[in-house]
C-alpha cells in the first residue's frame, strides 16, 4: 500500500538518514510530540489495519534495539537474534500475525543508524556467532527504495567476521545493496509460497518468479541466500504446488548458495481469525483442520503437517542432499518423523544454523 500520511516525532534529528527518507516519501510530514495522534488517526478508521499500512511514523525505538527471539516452550526455536528497525508492513498478507499482534498496528520506522551501529558493534565484540535478522516484526526490505538502512546494515556486517545478517523479504527491493561490498556476511532471504497463495493471500507482494529472479540476481553478486516456506498452507493439491516451487528454486539458483531453508505450516493466535474474516472475506485460509497447539496458537492437525513436511523435505533433499532444512517451531515428533532426528539439546538447532552460516559466510 502507498504511504499517504507521514508523521515524525519532533525530537528526531534531521540527519542524512531522515532527510533522505522524507524526500523519498514525498509527503509533507506532520510533527508530533508522541505517538498519540498517530494512534488516534489510525484508530479512527473503519479498518485501522489498512490505514496503518498507509501511515508512516518515523520515531525513535523506545524499546530494545536488539534481542533474542522469544521462541516458545514445547516447540524448538532456532535461537535467532532480532534487530528492531521498524514495525508492521506496507504489504497486506491475510495471514500476517502483525495484524493482531500490535494494538493498534503502526507502521514505524525507527530512526538512528548510530544506535543500530552501537548495539551491533557490542554484539560483534562478543566474538560469538549471531544470526541477526530484521524480518521478525516487519519485512526487511520494504523501505529499501526510500531508506539508507539496508545498505548501512549490509556495510556494517561486511566489516566483521563473527555474525551474519539475514534480510528476509517478499519484495524484490535489493537495488541499493546489490553492488556494494557485502563480504558474504549478509544472507538475502525470501519467503516463498505457491503462486495460488501469493495471489490470493499475499496482497501487494512480488510474484514468485520475481522473487526468484531477485534471488538469482543477488546470487550473481555473491550474496548467500536463504528461503523460508512459512507459512505453508494446506489446500487441495498443495503438495504438488509446493514441489513445483522447489523445482523453480533450483532452476533459478545454485544449491551451494543457499545457507538454509526453513519450513513451517500456518499457525496463528486465535484472535487473528476474526481479523482475517473481517479484512479478507474471500480467504479460506483459517478453515483448515486447525487445533489449539501447546503454545496456544492454532496449528494444523499434526499428521497433516507431517505429511506435507515429508513431501517438501524429501523433494528438497533430492535437489540438495546437504542443504540445511529446518523447522520453525516444531516438536520432537515432527522432527523425528520427517527428518529422522531431533535437535533436542538446548541450542542444538541454533548450533546447526551457526555451522551452516559459518561454512557459507566464512565466519570465524
Amino acid at each position: 500500500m502507498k504511504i499517504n500520511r507521514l508523521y515524525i516525532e519532533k525530537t528526531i534529528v534531521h540527519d542524512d538518514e531522515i532527510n533522505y527518507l522524507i524526500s523519498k516519501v514525498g509527503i509533507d510530514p506532520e510533527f508530533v510530540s508522541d505517538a498519540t495522534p498517530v494512534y488516534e488517526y489510525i484508530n479512527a478508521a473503519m479498518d485501522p489495519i489498512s490505514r496503518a499500512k498507509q501511515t508512516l511514523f518515523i520515531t525513535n525505538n523506545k524499546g530494545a534495539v536488539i534481542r533474542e527471539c522469544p521462541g516458545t516452550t514445547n516447540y524448538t526455536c532456532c535461537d535467532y537474534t532480532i534487530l528492531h528497525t521498524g514495525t508492521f508492513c506496507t504489504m497486506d498478507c491475510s495471514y500476517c500475525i502483525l495484524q493482531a499482534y500490535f494494538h493498534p498496528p503502526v507502521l514505524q520506522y525507527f530512526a538512528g543508524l548510530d544506535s543500530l551501529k552501537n548495539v551491533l558493534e557490542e554484539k560483534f565484540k562478543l566474538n560469538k556467532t549471531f544470526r541477526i535478522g530484521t524480518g521478525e516484526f516487519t519485512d526487511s526490505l520494504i523501505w529499501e527504495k526510500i531508506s539508507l538502512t539496508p545498505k548501512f546494515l549490509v556495510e556494517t556486517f561486511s566489516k566483521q567476521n563473527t555474525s551474519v545478517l539475514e534480510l528476509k523479504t517478499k519484495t524484490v527491493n535489493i537495488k541499493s545493496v546489490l553492488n556494494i561490498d557485502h563480504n558474504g556476511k549478509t544472507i538475502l532471504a525470501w519467503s516463498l509460497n505457491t503462486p495460488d497463495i501469493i495471489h490470493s493471500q499475499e496482497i501487494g507482494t512480488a510474484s514468485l518468479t520475481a522473487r526468484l529472479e531477485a534471488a538469482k540476481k543477488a546470487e550473481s553478486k555473491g550474496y548467500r541466500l536463504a528461503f523460508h516456506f512459512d507459512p505453508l498452507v494446506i489446500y487441495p493439491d498443495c503438495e504438488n504446488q509446493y514441489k513445483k516451487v522447489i523445482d523453480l528454486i533450483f532452476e533459478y539458483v545454485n544449491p551451494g548458495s543457499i545457507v538454509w531453508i526453513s519450513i513451517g505450516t500456518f499457525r496463528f493466535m486465535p484472535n487473528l481469525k476474526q481479523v482475517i474474516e473481517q479484512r479478507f472475506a474471500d480467504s479460506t485460509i483459517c478453515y483448515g483442520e486447525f487445533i489449539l497447539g501447546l503454545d496456544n496458537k492454532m496449528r494444523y492437525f499434526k499428521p497433516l503437517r507431517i505429511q506435507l513436511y515429508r513431501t517438501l523435505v524429501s523433494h528438497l533433499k533430492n535437489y540438495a542432499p546437504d542443504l540445511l532444512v529446518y523447522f520453525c517451531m516444531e516438536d520432537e515428533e515432527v522432527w523425528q518423523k520427517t527428518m529422522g532426528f531431533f535437535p533436542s539439546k538446548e541450542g542444538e538447532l541454533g548450533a546447526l544454523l551457526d555451522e551452516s552460516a559459518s561454512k557459507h559466510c566464512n565466519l570465524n
Partner: protein
Amino acid sequence: MSERLYELKISDVDLTDIDLADDRYRISHSQTNTALLAQSILEIGLVNPVVLLLVHDKHIIISGFNRVKAHLLNKALTITARVINPETSKQKAIGSGAIKSETIYIDYLVLAIGAACFKHQLSQVELIKSLIKLSVFMDAGHIAHKSGTLFNTQLNQKYIDELIAIGQLQPQGLALLESGHLSIKAAKKLSVLNGPDVLVFLMLLGAVKASTSVQLEMILYLTEISKRDKLSLKSVIQSSEIETIIDDENIDLITKTQQVRDCIYQLRFPELFKARQDVKQKINSLGLGRAVKIEPPPNFEAQQFTFSFTAKTYKQFVRHFNKLTTAVQDLKLKDIFSA
C-alpha cells in the same frame, strides 16, 4: 407518553362482541392451561378484569387473551373488562389532528406490555415481540431510556438492538426460541445471516435439541465448511450425511443430536475425526472395560497418553493392573502409540 391518552371504564362485555382474531396487542403466547384457569375463574371469580378496546362495534383485546378463552370454555356470556372508551376527548383530538393516531397505538401497546411484564417476567420471546412492536415507533435508545417503566427492568441499547435483530428471524426462529431449540446466543449469530441461510439453520436446529454451546458449534462449523468448500449453506446442511440422520425416525432426539454433531465435526475436521475414531476403536479392542481408561493427548498434538484406573480394594487394584499388563502384550496397544 407522559400523559395517558385513554380512560378505562369497568363494564361487563358480551363475549360475542370481542374480536378474537385481532391479536395486534398480544405479547404473551405462554402455554397457560386454559382448563385450569377456567376452573379457577369458576371457583374464585375473575380477579383481574381484562382490558379491551372498543373499535367500531367490536372489542379487541389489549390484555387478557387467556382469560377470555377461559370464559368461552366456561360458556360464559359476558366478561368483566376495563374498556377503553374511544369517545374520550383526547381521542377525539385525533380527528382534529392534534394527536397522531400512532401515538394512541403506542399507548395501548405500552399498556399491553405493562400488563404482561408487571404480571410475570417476560420470556425472551415476549420481550422480543414487544420490542419489535415498539421499534416501529421508537428507536432503541428511546426504548432503553424508557425500559424501566415499560418492562419493569433496565435494558441497554445494544441488547435491545440485538433482540430486535433476532426478532427479524423468521417466525420459525421465534417459535424455536420459545420451544428451547434455539438459544438467544445462537439466534444472535443467525440474525446476521441472510434469509435462506437462516431458514436452513432453523430447520436443522428445530430437528435436534442441542445446548447453547453445541448450537453455536454447529453454526460455526457449518458456516466454515460452506466457506471452505465454496458451497451454499443450504447444500452443506442438506447434504445426504446430515439429512439421513435428521430423517431417521428410529432414533431418539438426544441420539439424533449427538449424531448430527458428530457428523458436522467429521465434515469440518475429517482427518482429526478419523484419528480419534481409530484410536477409540483400538482402545476398545483392548478389552480393558470401563475401569481402566486410556486418554489420548488432546487433538494428538502432544504425545503423552494417560492411563488411569481407580480401585476401592487391593483385589480390584490387582484386577485392573493385570488387565493392563495383559494389554502390554497386545500389539494394538503398541499401535496406538505409533498412530
